């Protein structure tokens, strides 16, 4: 079983910090950005940014898995 690498976990923490822990910093209405109250704009922005972060996490994981030669597709025996 492939365990997630520390680098990939650190990348995944970015959306958690942005959307969850930092709420006191962005939970306000003004200024409006693109017609949205600031907190709603911030959340929507991070819905879009999260796949970008996770693409990096994917690349990191993929490199490690390929290096370890452990890609497992259905039907192939492994242990």
């Amino acid at each position, binding site marked *: 079983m492939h365990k*997630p690498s520390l680098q990939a976990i650190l990348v*995944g923490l970015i959306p958690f910090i942005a959307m969850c822990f930092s709420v006191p910093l962005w939970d306000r209405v003004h200024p409006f950005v693109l017609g949205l109250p600031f907190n709603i704009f911030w959340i929507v922005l991070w819905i879009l940014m999260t796949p970008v972060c996770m693409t990096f996490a994917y690349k990191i994981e993929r490199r490690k898995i390929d290096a370890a030669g452990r890609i497992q597709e259905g039907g192939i025996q492994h*242990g």
Partner: protein
Amino acid sequence: MDSSTIALSVIFVIVLVSSIVGMYAGARYKMNLEQWTVAGRGFGVVLVWLLMAGEIYTTFAFLGASGWAYSRGGPTLYIMAYLTLAYVFSFYFLPQIWEIGKKFGMQTQSDFFHKRYGSKNLAAFASLIGVIFIIPYLQLQLTGLGIIVEVSGFGGISRATAIIVAFILVAIFVFISGVRAVAWISVIKDFLMLFAAFFIGIGLPYMYFGGISEMFTALVNAKPLHLILPGSTKTMGQTWYISTVLLTSMGFYMWPHLFSAAFTAKSNDTLRKNAVMMPLYTITMPLIFFVGFTAILVVPGLSNGDLALLTIVRNSYPAWFMGLIGAAGALTAMVPAAILILAAATLFAKNFYREMFAPNMTDDQVEKLAKVMVIVITLIALYFAIYSSTTLVNLLLLGYAGVTQFLPGVIFGLYWGRINKTGVFSGLVTGIAVVAYLVLTKQDPFFGINAGFVALCVNFAVTITVTLMTKPEPNRFNEESVS
């Protein structure tokens, strides 16, 4: 034709066509237990995406999210945050669960507990907890469906009739095609849902205020504090937000039906790619919120916020359009209900009944019993939905906080070799006891913190402490595979 007939015809045609698609989906495959529950582990990125989206965008997303925006305001932001973060979190353990599941031929969450901890009692207990918490969730879908068809059909048929007809259809397509039916009906549902969300999420603010920005400006002027935490509530502040987002995003895939959806994937890479892309699906949620926010000023004073979306649509669009929205709403209840029924039936037959009472049952007999349970579970939920109570929301909160207590057993099971069954069992029981106590005595939030999160922390502490005080056990995931 009057409005009621038009809207109901549209709903009926769409729901019927979808059900036929669902029944047809499994007809090409010879059904056995593995085909019925996890589609022979043959789903690629697109079907897994659709299946998972189908399970996630439930009637709560449709009615509840707009209802929260309408009646609570700011706290509703937690929904967008936790859905997005649930996928992020899943990136780090769902592919691993798939690997283990593939290695040992797992179909359910309890199979995971059974193999890892080598205890049929723990597995049977976990499956019973799973089934118990699924029933109120299912009941919520049924009740939501009743409300949708009643309101969008302009009161043309009664809530009870709508629920019964829809659920006979659900039981039939689950019975015939299992998980394949669910994935294919999701295709139709997702298109309708996307269309509905974009059309009314942007259309309604323009219709009444001339734009989304103008709508928010009017709302901020009328209710300056509604959009920030704790919004129009007293208890849902920033601490509540952080603890709730953590609890629900980490606990999300602990729902037995979402956990076992991982086993339908063709490869672990499918699940990684899904985790990367799924957050984009959350982009429909703000649009649903816009509808709820618009409704505050346009149809103020509704006693039940859950009716906000349907009421404003009914007041603003022609009957056939109301029918389309009603059909989208009905499918958002039927698809998750189907997967909930499937998961509960399999858990009961395979992991509870066979483990505890009939160890010699073959897979074919388990599949037959599971199909009988499809009918039994549907009837139980129907009974609750029709004669139901005001405690529905409480039951759901209890359910969410309850299933999250599986988290230590799953995460430590994967990543901590020292963990043992006594630790997991003690943590699980303590966690559920704390949840039940805090929620039933109405102490949620507990000092501003989500009660489920408090219970999860206690659960982790107990699991770790008891494990370290008891004897180590071998990690059974390191054994050779069964195949």
